[in-house]
């Protein structure tokens, strides 16, 4: 599938901002199954300096500085991205989950995703919850599909009750939140068993494939979970907000241990007063 992606973020300030420095994760990265044909991030007003770098996780970061007074700041991403995700093997043919936990901790590219992180820290209750889907000897994919379904069933999609620093433990109690909270919840479950899981930020196609229901998190930045199924199969993505095994409806932007590693836009500004924010996302298939 080939997609055309537009993502615009605009800040309007009540007072002029005299200086702004911004650090962004807003350029999509490549991954197995995702090929970036072209991607452009344009910033307005024209920044004084701009540096695009690759971070520890292989994501693309952009650091800019604005030194002319401005009342509006906007960042626009437009990209053409090819997604081709082959389905994973049948659950029965995947390794047992215990083996995954053992291998993961020793693999330098995987180890850090097995460990607790600030927003996705397991606790005893979360471990008990997870254990139901991972009895001894079960294959990893069977457990993951069930966990994905259970989280989707047990959570109530509720915008506005959580924020960027809401922890998995809190979400586990309230069972309410948005895609970010679903993802942190599932990551905390995986890490309770020492299973490797990544927080993925990205986009979901705006209109669902013909005949399917409208997805939650379309028209917006989206977040989901990537789980490791061993060196042979590699990473497979799950979207607990929509109870989906990710195939070709999702476009990956960046990944990390949790939201904090991939925060789309951070900034330190002088002045500005109150501000308002507008975000616009379109992800549409290119008709070929």
């Amino acid at each position, binding site marked *: 599938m080939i997609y055309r992606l537009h993502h615009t973020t605009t800040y309007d300030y009540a007072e002029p901002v005299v*200086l702004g*420095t911004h650090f962004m994760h807003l350029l999509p990265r490549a991954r197995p199954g995702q090929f970036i044909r072209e991607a452009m991030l344009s910033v307005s007003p024209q920044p004084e300096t701009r540096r695009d770098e690759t971070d520890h996780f292989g994501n693309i970061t952009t*650091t800019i500085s604005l030194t002319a007074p401005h009342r509006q700041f906007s960042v626009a991403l437009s990209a053409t991205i090819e997604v081709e995700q082959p389905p994973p093997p049948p659950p029965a043919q995947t390794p047992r989950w215990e083996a995954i936990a053992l291998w993961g901790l020793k693999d330098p590219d995987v180890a850090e995703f097995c*460990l607790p992180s600030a927003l996705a820290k397991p606790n005893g209750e979360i471990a008990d919850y997870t254990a139901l889907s991972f009895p001894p000897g079960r294959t990893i994919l069977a457990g993951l599909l069930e966990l994905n379904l259970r989280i989707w069933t047990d959570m109530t999609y509720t915008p506005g009750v959580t924020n960027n620093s809401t922890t998995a433990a809190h979400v586990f109690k309230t069972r309410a939140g*948005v*895609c970010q909270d679903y993802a942190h919840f599932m990551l905390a479950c995986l890490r309770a068993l020492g299973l490797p899981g990544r927080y993925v930020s990205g986009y979901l196609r705006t209109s669902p494939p013909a005949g399917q229901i409208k997805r939650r998190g379309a028209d917006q*930045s989206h977040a989901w979970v990537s789980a490791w199924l061993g060196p042979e199969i590699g990473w497979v993505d799950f979207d607990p907000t929509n109870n989906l095994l990710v195939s070709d409806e999702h476009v990956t932007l960046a990944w990390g241990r949790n939201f904090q590693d991939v*925060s789309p836009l951070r900034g*330190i500004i002088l002045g500005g007063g109150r501000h308002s924010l507008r*975000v616009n996302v379109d992800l549409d298939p290119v008709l070929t």
Partner: protein
Amino acid sequence: MSAVASCDEMIDRSGRVRGHWAPLLEAVRDVGHEELARRAAALNRQMRLAAPFGAAPTRHYDPLPALLTPFEFSGLEAGLLQRAQLLSAALQDLYGPQTLLRDGSLPPALVLGNPHFLRSLHTQTPLNFPRLSLYAADLIRGPDGHFQVLRDHTGVIPGLGHALSLRRIASGTVPELFRAGGLRSLRPVREMLVDNLQRAAQGGLVAVLSAGAANPALAPDAMDDALLARALGVLLIEPGDLATRNGGLHMKTLSGLLPVASLIRGLPGIDLDPLEQGGRPGAGIPGAFGAIRSGALKMLNAPGSALMEAAELAGYIEPLFQRLLGAAPLLAKASGDPVASASRAPFVSGTSLVSPPILFRLYAWHDGNTWQVLPGGLGFGLEQTNAAQGIILTGMKDLWVLDADEPHIISGAAQSDVPRRTQFLAAAHLPSRVADNLFWLGRSVERLEAAARLLMLALPRLESGTSLPRDLAERALIAKCLAQAGLLPADLAGGALSGRQLRGALARRKPVTGQLKEVARLVNAASERLSPSMLATVRFALNQATESLPNEELALPAMLSFAATFAGIAAENMSRDGGWLFLEMGRRLERAETLAENLAILLNAPPERLEPGMALGIELADSVLSYDLRHAGILAPGPVLSMLLADSGNPRSLAYQFIVLRSCLQHLGAEDDAESLKQLQQEAVNLSGETIGLAKPLAAIAARLRLISDHVHRRFFSLLPEAHQLEDELELEAAQ
């Protein structure tokens, strides 16, 4: 007890004094134990006075050095070089290709799961400077006489400032010991370090980054940072002094933003960059990580270098020597109980010598090509705590590397030991924060003096006044002045004020205590710009003033005496650079404003009733004697006003304040403000010829002075408003 008894640094196994200790021991005997105890106290006093921001040093300083022979040092030197090389290579790898994780030399989970592993500094291409440039090792000498490494320091390097300063201060308090034998000077190495830092900075600023007076807890050892900055002749700065522009770091100074090239890091690297890590902008340096990655900023050491100190990794370090350097470690790692196995060394305790176990800390730095080891360092007494916490370091002492070839006499606090000043310490490069603090220090000391003066004049008059019209008038004027100065609640100023009421107000509100506290706070905040001797005298005077409280009335003479000491010290001990100019401006502005306000009250009367106000005015301005001498004590408006307003030779006249202020502002290039002062001076001269309608123009002068004060503040100090983090709350709704 360990199986093999620990050895003694000074005494060999047969009970004889080791040869290289003999000259020192002889010098100790010559000084005598009683005198040595006094010298130890003096050394500790000196160190306390050298502490910045009012931070008291937490440890005890021992006047006796620990000694290393040239042979011992060359062994340690080689071992330290090798270890520094190894840890540096490991850091370069872990923050780069991570082959040590891929080949299983280090467990990935221990490295990647360590909070000191900073992902923001993991880069595909190496930084343009070594991640490890400063290194220190803690060592003990085992029962077999060989040195063993107890701990590595690769993040913030503790004690380097002390290691470079303790000797200079000790040489002043126990000069006799320095005649005992030749020791290697630290100077050549220190100068090399300074040269190297400046050369690498290519004209940019070099500074020690520490926490300021506002957040002293952020820095592990702010006192050491201050000593280090002083020893290297570089600035001591805090996060608030820095601003990011166009990807580079700049220091906010009076002359604008100056690019910063290198920072010696006294703050933990974790949470240093709120831009990339989130958090309050004021708590760190937004953009620091990006500046480091882009090569605009060097940091000694790079953030994240503390990773190599991690206890979890300690067991994996030794095998790396073979893997990375192809050689066995020259220094063994200490095992077992360090307190039981460490050698013992003499420390002064009261009037006797004791021999606790000793820890040696040696320092190395990278000069761009190779590692250099400081021929000195620190010694610490070791003490066992409960098993969970391990060991604590008690007394700190200088470490001497003996060298028969060096000249025998190291002169006391020699001129040659004073670090070279760099161009960056010039007036224009004064950090805005420091200028701000000095300005308010000047104002607050003057305000304290004015309050003391007014109260000393008021109390006897309120006590003994009659009900004669002249006395009543005088008391009413005093009450108004007291209210104006904030020493009396406004509601008491209207009626007939009694001495009892004023005493009651003082006891309740403690205004003098409050003002003295503010002075003490500002002395601490500005301490880095006051020389150690000046700071010592000011703090001594401040202590005396504080001790004379809480009875504010009895304490007034002590306040005046403090203000006089402060003024004298500032006049005699401070060079007339940027710092002094701001102190002076603060003082003169405050004095002029107070005088104008008081005179506006005192001279608010028709000409025939000016006399009580004039008398008080002359007394408040401490000009009674000069007036009497000049005018035989006969009060007449002409001469009185001339003396208080227009006399450029009277240091308490308005005109005098204006002249000094104008000259300060001209020095700082503030021509427009200087011009306003010139006009004010002319107005003061004109006013001195009037006898009616003085109150209004005087009040107007006070108002103009407040405007000038605001203007000075905006021009020099509020270069930048506080930054804030762009809130993510709204953005969150986007991430659904």
